[in-house]
């Protein structure tokens, strides 16, 4: 645990990529081999089985520290992280227990499923032998959510530097559902591929947001344009003996979309396609809201299948006849994709995303303005000569999204942020006018500068009307312009409306609360958004 804690402290003390990569590769060279595997797993978002719930941890820590539970609850939002709160409130350790990261994880795995007293005793004993940073990390093993400021790409590069294996190979190996307990470090960095890789996906290529406009992109002929569909990005794997559907979050979602399973028979073996899962009814493409019924379902009833069927819109071809195509130019990959799609039987639930032809950028900009009519979020621009990159590499893939919807609303509640922003009020609830009432309709926590958050924090503190735990009710005075990507009906919301990705565009100091928008203006947007798409 000492080596892992030192790594954590080194990563936490810097924002420089070079320093982080250096700290990681030093760790990958020197730490115990199985600890390396676990560190890779933790940084990829995997975590051990849960030995205790957050509530249990909170209760046990409060008892051990001799504090009433409410005081721990009051401390938590100030610290901003439960694992850290517990590490800080506990009395100093009386012992020094020297165990490796893997040993601690094994201990947690052994506790999992045991009766409450055994688990409690095991965790209290652990707390009593760990220094604060180690204690915090130990708690994080249980609560999950390691955020160490290390992206997947950065970890891959560090691992490549430490092992001498190419980073694309390592990135591919880290995809999918490998389990750290059954994987050795040698397997992760071995130059040869293993049999278990047959359903493993490739890392997704990601686009950067195109701010401003396409003027700097050069001739329009260099670019392929298509709609940016509003669904679930997915990778379809059809290999000998394996058919799998992966989400961008690397979840295996094959069973959630059984109607796509038919592709296992029609796609040529050795095909991997990058695509978007979209809702598709009798009338064709449906808004994202229809797809939401399907999200997070592990099993799907016949009824739901009939109500909200889906289809794949294919963007790209990554593997053709078992050959990794990612280094070929987009134009080549796209030609292969068209060939495969056209060979599918009629009615197959997979179509190719249409390419949009345009003489010049102005014509393409005009197309983009129609995106909402096509139920798209905007355009995707891909350089015809570009390979399929590993993750996000600026320059070859751009998302040219529509300007978001926006409304002016007033803040009515404020809550302190987490982590870096624990001492600031950053999470706000907003309301719109509805007749003489103010109706809460959205929450947002990003889009302002730290300086603005500081100023608003001082205002919130000076103007609090009521406190509910970490939440403060404030007078409806501060007006903000909120942007959002989509809008849909919602029975769960008091306003009857739910927004997608609301965020603060700016603080409207110039606007009094009397001039905010009304709920009716949102209802009008909702109507417009749900009128049937034009063909």
């Amino acid at each position: 645990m000492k080596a892992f804690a030192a790594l954590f402290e080194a990563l936490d003390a810097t924002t420089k990529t070079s320093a982080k990569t250096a700290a990681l590769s030093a760790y990958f060279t020197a730490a115990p081999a199985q600890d390396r595997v676990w560190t890779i797993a933790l940084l990829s978002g995997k975590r051990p089985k849960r030995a205790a719930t957050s509530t249990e941890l909170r209760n046990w820590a409060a008892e051990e520290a001799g504090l009433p539970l409410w005081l721990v609850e009051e401390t938590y939002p100030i610290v901003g992280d439960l694992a850290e709160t517990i590490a800080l409130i506990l009395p100093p350790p009386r012992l020094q227990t020297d165990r490796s990261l893997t040993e601690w994880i094994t201990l947690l795995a052994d506790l999992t499923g045991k009766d409450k007293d055994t688990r409690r005793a095991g965790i209290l004993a652990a707390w009593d032998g760990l220094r604060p940073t180690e204690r915090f990390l130990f708690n994080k093993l249980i609560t999950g959510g390691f955020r160490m400021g290390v992206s997947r790409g950065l970890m891959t590069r560090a691992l490549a530097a430490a092992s001498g294996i190419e980073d694309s190979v390592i990135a591919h190996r880290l995809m999918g559902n490998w389990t750290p307990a059954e994987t050795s470090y040698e397997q992760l960095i071995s130059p040869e591929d293993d049999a278990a890789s047959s359903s493993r996906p490739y890392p997704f290529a990601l686009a950067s947001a195109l701010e401003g406009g396409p003027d700097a992109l050069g001739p329009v002929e260099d670019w392929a344009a298509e709609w940016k569909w509003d669904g679930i990005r997915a990778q379809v794997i059809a290999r000998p003996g394996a058919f799998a559907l992966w989400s961008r979050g690397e979840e295996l979602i094959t069973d959630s979309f059984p109607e796509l399973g038919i592709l296992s028979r029609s796609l040529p073996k050795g095909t991997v396609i990058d695509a978007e899962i979209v809702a598709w009814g009798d009338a064709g493409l449906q808004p994202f809201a229809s797809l939401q019924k399907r999200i997070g379902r592990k099993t799907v009833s016949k009824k739901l299948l009939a109500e909200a069927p889906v289809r794949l819109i294919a963007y790209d071809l990554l593997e053709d006849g078992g050959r990794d195509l990612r280094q070929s130019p987009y134009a080549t990959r796209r030609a292969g994709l068209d060939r495969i799609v056209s060979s599918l039987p009629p009615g197959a639930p997979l179509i190719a995303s249409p390419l949009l032809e345009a003489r010049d950028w102005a014509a393409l900009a005009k197309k983009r303005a129609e995106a909402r009519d096509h139920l798209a979020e905007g355009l995707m621009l891909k350089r015809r000569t570009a390979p399929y990159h590993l993750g996000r590499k600026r320059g070859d893939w751009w998302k040219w999204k529509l300007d978001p919807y926006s409304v002016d609303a007033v803040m009515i509640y404020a809550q302190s942020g987490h982590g870096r922003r624990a001492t600031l009020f950053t999470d706000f609830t907003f309301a719109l006018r509805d007749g003489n009432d103010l109706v809460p309709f959205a929450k947002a926590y990003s889009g302002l500068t730290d300086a603005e958050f500081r100023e608003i924090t001082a205002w919130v503190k000076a103007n609090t009307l009521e406190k509910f735990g970490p939440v403060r009710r404030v007078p409806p005075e501060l007006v903000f312009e909120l942007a959002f990507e989509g809008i849909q009906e919602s029975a769960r919301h008091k306003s009857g409306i739910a927004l997608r990705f609301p965020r603060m565009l700016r603080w409207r100091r110039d606007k009094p609360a009397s001039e905010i928008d009304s709920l009716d203006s949102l209802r009008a947007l909702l109507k417009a958004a749900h009128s049937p798409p034009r063909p």
Partner: protein
Amino acid sequence: MAREPVLSFTERGLYCPAGDFYIDPWRPVDRALITHGHSDHARSGHRAYLATHAALPVMRHRLGQISAEGLTFGETRQIGGALVSFHPAGHVPGSAQIRVEVGGEVWVVSGDYKLEEDGLSEPFTPVRCDTFITECTFGLPAFHWQPQAVVARQIADWWAANRAAGRISVLGAYGLGKAQRLMAALAAQGLPGPIATHGAIEVTTEILRNQGYALPPTQPVSLQKPDASCLVIAPPSALGSAWARKLGPVSEAFASGWMALRGVRRRRGPGTGFIVSDHADWPGLNRAIAETGASRIFATHGYTTAFQKWLAHQGYDAGIVSTEWQGETQDPETPT
């Protein structure tokens, strides 16, 4: 018969009707008793000031021409119907708790305080009283300080490592109290190199040195350009500034109780955080309160809501004084 309270809470600040004076008021008044020279306690514009002799030189420097009188620690003074005296708060050099006695009833206003002896400030002494008005800047159980010597060792190690890497160490610390306390603590361990100062730090250091506080020699950065062997002490606002960049390759750190929280450390951006505060930690607050023997406690200047609830839970008659003091609580970048 209901008696007038010894101190009441007014919009100008804490007021003693029997003596017609205020303690650390935030609006101009005729007569102000000041616990210490930090800007959220010693404001300008009062007609007459009363503070400890030890606190006055910095106050005069910061507030300019003021009509002020000094008292020695423990010396009593009758003001109208109130008997007042100043007692060491251990917060910064010259800082005091103010004891007010009216008709046999004793109230104590803590000002800012800490219990650990820092080798420079007059050490905190508990004062028995009926009512104690306590700060609670770090009044949550997440705050536990390590002994000053341990932190000084961490700073010295960091300094030595920077020196070896050819980088100047720049340590952000509040200009009155924290900066000088760290100099003295580092000197007590044997300095790995010379201490250099930002102008704002040097001024206060020079005033305290002239008062007789034992401080190691310092050289202002403006007079001699520091090299990698130096530790430069600067106000927190100078970290990451153009001023710091001009020094050459530097490694920056910030010394504050807030560095105990990862969220705050990260919000400040890169750099090292040393956890050292001039305020009492959670065990310190609880011990100080118990040692006053007071049955009634008012919490102010910090996490008052939670702290008041905690005190009530412990059986105290507990209340809150809301203030316009902003202090260290609101934002780690505001000096107190």
